[in-house]
């Protein structure tokens, strides 16, 4: 059964550094998403992406964040200058007929 995959599973970075989180959505899906979950808090929507552009973004998704689909398979989330409060689990999802399928997540730790 096809799955959403994410790499790396764990990323440790220094504050102020750029990170890129990678996702490979399910191949025939058209909508892609990033969510995050800070430890002990709710899963929060960051951004949705359709037809090579952002379709919706949350207040969290400020100028430090960007998304890209650089080729036909990858979907990336870039954080330009990480802050301590960016430490969280980041989930990628893709959807088909209003059902979202999630990847295993990348745990980002900012020191």
């Amino acid at each position: 059964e096809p799955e959403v995959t994410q790499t790396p599973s764990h990323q440790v970075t220094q504050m102020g550094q750029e990170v890129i989180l990678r996702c490979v959505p399910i191949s025939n899906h058209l909508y892609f998403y990033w969510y995050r979950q800070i430890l002990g808090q709710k899963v929060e929507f960051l951004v949705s992406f359709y037809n090579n552009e952002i379709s919706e973004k949350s207040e969290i998704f400020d100028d430090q964040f960007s998304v890209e689909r650089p080729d036909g398979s990858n979907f990336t989330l870039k954080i330009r200058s990480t802050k301590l409060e960016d430490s969280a689990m980041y989930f990628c999802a893709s959807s088909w007929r209003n059902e979202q399928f999630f990847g295993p997540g990348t745990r980002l730790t900012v020191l």
Partner: protein
Amino acid sequence: AQSVSQHNHHVILSEAASLELGCNYSYGGTVNLFWYVQYPGQHLQLLLKYFSGDPLVKGIKGFEAEFIKSKFSFNLRKPSVQWSDTAEYFCAVTDRGGNKLVFGAGTILRVKS
């Protein structure tokens, strides 16, 4: 803005006990409703969903949920839990026009064998 409330943060049950996890949402329009489960060390998986039609929906692993529009609720049930149901359960909603999921805080279920 939409919000989702899950009433219990931690639930501990013995095997074979019945389960009901509460979920209420705030959005007054037409919604799609979901329950996701996250087993320890695994990713979010869809348990069941409601888009329209019969308000009692059945999902995987013997779970079901009932949509009660007048109460803005979508409670999850299972008549007899197993140790393997130990996991965190998330209720989520999207409005019909949008595609972002709004999640509840999650309920951690521990089933004692």
